[in-house]
């Protein structure tokens, strides 16, 4: 019976971990969301006075990647159930949040999100006249992203809680997938850029080679500016002036 109740409370903790960004602020960052997620477990294990004493120790800033916060919450839950010292738990939390955040940022934001966006753009340009197909493909892309997202939240919590330590094997798998996904994204982006230029061409005056030449010319100009000048405002201004010159010159 007690096991069933604990199971229900842990499910509540996982569900609440989805809102770890709630009341995000510059002083404590995700602390409110974190305490809000773990509070049911405290209320299940400790008395009112003990909770006040323990959470007072936890009241320091907390920030990590929202998708991997469940790993830290799982470790926290395991340590609470084993009745470990609160200072020890706080030390664990502080030690884990930054490395997990960097893994989450590079994998989820840097790679997986770029992949989702690249395939979405690709599908939008290919199927823009077939809405049903477009919706199916966009939904599939979103599903693919969220399967990985939920896998980390639920499976990550379950495994970390069961073994009481982080399973670092998953990071190795990540970096293999990261390379593949980055490569696949670049493939989709190349297709997309080709289709974009094709759409530009089908609507208006110029031949393909003119678009291509202007596009490549601006790429080299921007690489040069990025390397030697580095000021965004000047780059945009220079691009605008060149665009005006090209228009007045009558190239188009």
């Amino acid at each position, binding site marked *: 019976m007690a096991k069933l109740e604990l199971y229900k409370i842990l499910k509540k903790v996982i569900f609440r971990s*989805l*809102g770890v960004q*709630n*009341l*995000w*602020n*510059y*002083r404590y*960052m995700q*602390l*409110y*969301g974190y*305490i809000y997620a773990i509070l049911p477990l405290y209320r299940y294990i400790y008395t009112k006075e003990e909770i*006040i004493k323990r959470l*007072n120790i936890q*009241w320091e800033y907390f*920030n990590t990647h929202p998708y991997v916060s469940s790993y830290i919450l799982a470790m926290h839950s395991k340590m609470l159930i084993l009745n470990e010292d609160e200072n020890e738990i706080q030390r664990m939390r502080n030690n884990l949040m930054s490395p997990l955040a960097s893994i989450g940022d590079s994998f989820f*934001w*840097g790679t997986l999100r770029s992949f*989702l*966006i690249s395939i*979405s*753009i690709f599908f*939008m*340009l290919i199927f*823009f*006249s077939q809405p049903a197909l*477009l*919706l199916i493909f*966009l939904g599939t892309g*979103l599903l693919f992203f*969220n399967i990985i*997202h939920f896998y980390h939240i639920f499976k990550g919590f379950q495994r970390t809680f069961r073994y009481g330590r982080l399973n670092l094997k998953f990071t190795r798998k990540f970096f293999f997938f990261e*390379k*593949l996904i*980055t490569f696949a994204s*670049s*493939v989709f982006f*190349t*297709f997309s*850029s*080709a289709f*974009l230029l094709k*759409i*530009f061409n089908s609507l208006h*005056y*110029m031949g*393909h080679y003119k678009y291509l030449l*202007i*596009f490549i010319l*601006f*790429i080299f100009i*921007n*690489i040069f500016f*990025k390397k030697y000048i580095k000021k965004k405002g000047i780059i945009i201004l220079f691009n605008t002036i*060149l*665009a005006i010159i*090209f*228009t007045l010159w009558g190239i*188009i």
Partner: protein
Amino acid sequence: MIVFLLIISIVGGILSIEGLVWGKFMVSRPVIFVPAIVIILSAMNFFHTESNLIILLFFLLSILIELRLLFTIPVGSSFVPDTITGTLGIFFLAALLPKRLDADNFYSILLFLYMMVFSLSYISGYFDVLFKRFNTVLVEYGKKLLSDGEFYGFENLSKFGYILFFVKGFLLTLTSGALIYLFFKLILPLLNSPSINKFSIVFLITVLSRFAVNLFIHWRIFKNSLLNFIVFIFIIIMILQFHTLGLLIMLLIFCIYLILEIKRFNNG
């Protein structure tokens, strides 16, 4: 019509919660929600234009906004523009001015909307900062509740977070939609000029080229891997319209890359 504007604003509020507070399921990315809304509206015969140009306009706009803000990653306290409310604001235009779009002003309208959405995203991002500052007060109050042992009150504070961001999303969508509509009405005679349309094409190409440069730098194209260089050659093949040949080359490269990566992975 007012009902439609209210529905779009409510969607703005819900997407603000999804994108900033709860879940982050990526539904609030412009490349996901714009096509979904456009497809729903066109299925309801909402757009009265003869061609698919208005659909293409929304699609290209969401692509440009997404590409521009692809590499702004929300790390710690970094400033991230909020694309949700500004992008939803463009649907006000669809509701109010459906017939004024044709091939001669397509690019100038696209560029105008891109500029508007881009600047509104920054304004919305600034409001985000203000709300996050206000959250500090709420969390301090939460600390007081917690030390008094009022856990129920502490948990109830989370609802404030959702309500705050919903109201923010709702109001900003309404405001940005109204602003886009007003500016559009003011500037429309200029947008119909052919020379401005031509200028817009070149300017949009510069925007695309800036994005391409960011992509090269982000993925270290030309630095680490010969394979990425081959991808660049593939871009040119695709642009020159050798689609079948390009596809075959790409598949071949992908297979070689896969084999090499698996070998490297197995060797540790």
